[in-house]
């Protein structure tokens, strides 16, 4: 009897103790290129696991839009504690789902124009830019106006705002520069557009194959070619009107709010161990304190004279109308 009681008690103690041995886990949903071997994912995972003594599990989908869809699909039952990789054009919609929880006080994020949002925290940013091939184009346009009004022989490949984030970026860029005159600008630009691809990959592929001397991409694209391929051939054009900003953010889900590791990760994300990995793995600018200086290639990049950005709410309210406007001009 006594031995039975003893073994029962010890079994109960053991059962209670086992979960304490299992490490706590943090699940982060993100996009594919973040977790790729060459992406920031592996470094971030290692650094944060060392700091928290926990397990980090990344679940990756194709891109930021797919990320939001996945969370919408899973709804309240999502396994994600943190969703990392939405951009400011998606945050209004993401908030509207009610699946995200306000973060606590997270350290200051450094993005152009400052940041104040109770739900999402930036982890990097970049500017959209017209990237050109120096071997094909000797005098790149110096302004959006020059691009719009320039010779129709100098072609550019752009992306469709209905299916692609950079495509939407260019649409917003033109809108922020031209305002109500945007349709007229597009009507002129249309002659220079070689084709409108469904996504960034297709456009950049056509560009590097030499089909067009210009493509819509990021100011940081030349950094990749300089650092990884050691070539100066591809450069970004600097526009007088300024460049349109893209800020990538992360947020805690409502179910993640119950996991204390989520808050910790958000603080870690804006710190140097995370931020140091960003420039040369995600090819974007860090949005927080770094310990290492930026690779000198980043100093050679175009520095926007002015930062253009619509607020998340403005984009959410007008996106459909603006895309329809674009469509009616471009499909004539």
């Amino acid at each position, binding site marked *: 009897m006594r031995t039975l009681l003893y073994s029962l008690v010890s079994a109960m103690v053991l059962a209670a103790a086992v979960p304490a041995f299992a490490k706590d886990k943090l699940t982060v949903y993100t996009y594919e290129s973040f977790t790729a071997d060459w992406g920031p994912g592996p470094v971030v995972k290692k650094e944060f696991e060392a700091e928290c003594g926990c397990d980090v599990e990344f679940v990756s989908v194709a891109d930021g839009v797919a990320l939001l869809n996945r969370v919408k699909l899973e709804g309240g039952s999502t396994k994600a504690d943190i969703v990392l990789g939405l951009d400011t054009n998606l945050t209004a919609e993401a908030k509207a789902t009610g699946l995200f929880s306000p973060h606590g006080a997270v350290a200051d994020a450094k993005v152009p124009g400052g940041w104040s949002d109770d739900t999402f925290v930036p982890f990097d940013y970049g500017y959209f830019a017209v990237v050109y091939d120096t071997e094909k184009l000797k005098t790149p346009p110096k302004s959006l106006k020059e691009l719009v009004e320039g010779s129709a022989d100098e072609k550019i490949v752009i992306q*469709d705002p209905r299916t692609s984030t950079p495509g939407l970026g260019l649409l917003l860029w033109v809108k922020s520069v031209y305002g109500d005159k945007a349709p007229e600008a597009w009507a002129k630009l249309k002659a220079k557009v*070689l*084709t409108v*691809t*469904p996504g960034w990959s*297709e456009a950049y592929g056509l560009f590097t194959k*030499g089909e067009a001397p210009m493509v819509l991409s990021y100011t940081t694209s030349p950094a990749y*070619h300089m650092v990884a391929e050691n070539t100066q051939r591809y450069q970004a054009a600097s526009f007088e009107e300024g460049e349109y900003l893209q800020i990538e953010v992360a947020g805690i889900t409502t179910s993640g709010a119950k996991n204390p590791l989520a808050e910790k990760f958000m603080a870690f994300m804006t710190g140097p161990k995370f931020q140091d990995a960003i420039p040369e793995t995600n*090819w974007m600018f860090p949005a927080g304190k770094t310990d290492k200086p930026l690779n000198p290639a980043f100093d050679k990049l175009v520095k926007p004279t002015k930062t253009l950005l619509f607020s998340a709410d403005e984009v959410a309210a007008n996106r459909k109308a603006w895309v329809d406007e674009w469509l009616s001009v471009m499909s004539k």
Partner: protein
Amino acid sequence: MRLASDPRVTAGITALAAVALLIGGAFTGLLFEGAHDLSGAWAALDPYLLRVVRFTLWQAALSTLLSVGPALLVARALSRHPRFFGRGFILQLFALPLALPAIVAALGILALYGRAGYFSGLLSAVGGQGWPGIYGLSGILVAHVFFNLPLSSRLFLEALQTIPADQWRLASQLGMGPRPAFRLIEWPMLRAALPGIAGLVFMLCITSFTIVLTLGGGPAATTLEVGIYQALRFDFDPARAVALTLLQVALTCLVMLCLTRLGANTTGDANLPVAPRRYLSVGAGETILNIVLIALALLFVAGPMAATLAAGLGADLGRLAGEATVRQATLTSAGLAFVSALLSVLLSLSLTIARRALALNRRAGPRSLLEHAADTGAGLVLVVPPIVIGAGWFLLLRHAGDVFAIAPIMVVTVNAVMAMPFAIRAIRPAYDAASERHERLCALLGIAGWARFRLVDWPSLRRPLATGFAFAMALSLGDLGVIALFGSDSVQTLPYLLLARMGSYRTEDAAGLALLLGLVCLALVLAADWLGRGEKA
């Protein structure tokens, strides 16, 4: 009553039910989610949609015409010369374009005909000014013909090969020249196959998306599929996606109806073939013409593939092959494609057998709804975009646990069903012809069921089954549909990896992976061919 107890019909009904369940389930999931907000579905019906519909139909009709017309000639040329060096390789090569993701094919085509393509210098010289590239309708058409000319050539050839050897013997005994032989022997067979093959090509073109946007030159070239994709991906508006999908299905049904009027039902030869081989004598003039035809088709199809090969060889293939992710993706892709193709061929065979049984039981009179469904119904699945099926099922099952764990099952099933129209086109002519010949004998000898399949049907089905298998596999290998929307760590296929590399500046890696994808496909097609050949008589 006899019908219901016929196991052949039961098998067909099961296959149909599986297809219906797959599509019905997806629609239920989407409508359940979208029902509370139908405004998007109504808002989709605007004047712009009319333009999109017009362009969608126009490009699909032109693409079909340009693919199927030449394919008739190429298939005939190939059937007139059943033995020449490299014939087998040409046929295997013709299965490859299907396995190439659209963007890889587009880049391959542009490497030849683009502004910076190999031919641009020549074309500029001819045109007198800078070659503008093939952007616009012409680019879309070239790409669609690249995908569909080889496909339809092989399927027409499959139909031509069901012509009984006796007919050829008779033709040669009667001293029939190539012209009357074509009119009396080949054309009826081609015409019977025409609506099905043209319909298949039409469906593939009507749902084209990446090709249309990338090569179309701007949003004036937009298909309904773009709208569906946008609705699901960017706007997450399931109701609108369903509305547009239904519109797409309805339009396709209309076109299919028109196409069936082009066709003809042949009465096959009910006699057992006694001629040991085909008696073909092809004149010198015709031989030259046929060589030119086959060479042109080969150049057209092989050109972009050679460009893809050349680009792939520029990649660091050794490093790529050494990467664990690449190896894993290769295995995943090959495995999924194999299982999908197997399932697809099984389903298609059941449907083909059931359709034949129904047609036999009917004898005369109008075809029943079931027979129609078994005939063309399953084909319509092609115009239901995979992302719609994927999204619908994920929505339906999301409360039932971790739906992303079933992603591999989803990929296999959707690919299998998507490939059915191909497999059916490959299998049906041979099965129907064999059945026409053996039906009475089997009834007389009381051979049925498994014994009949093994002893009577299998020998004549072996080769077309392999063709169907090869196409189904190629299609599944290149597919990105289901996982493109949500992605999944558990299903990283080669095309997924390829696009991921392309999406992070690694263009060379992507080219290398395209080459690898082509090689995997070629290997699988070769294997299918080898299995299909069997003991050669």
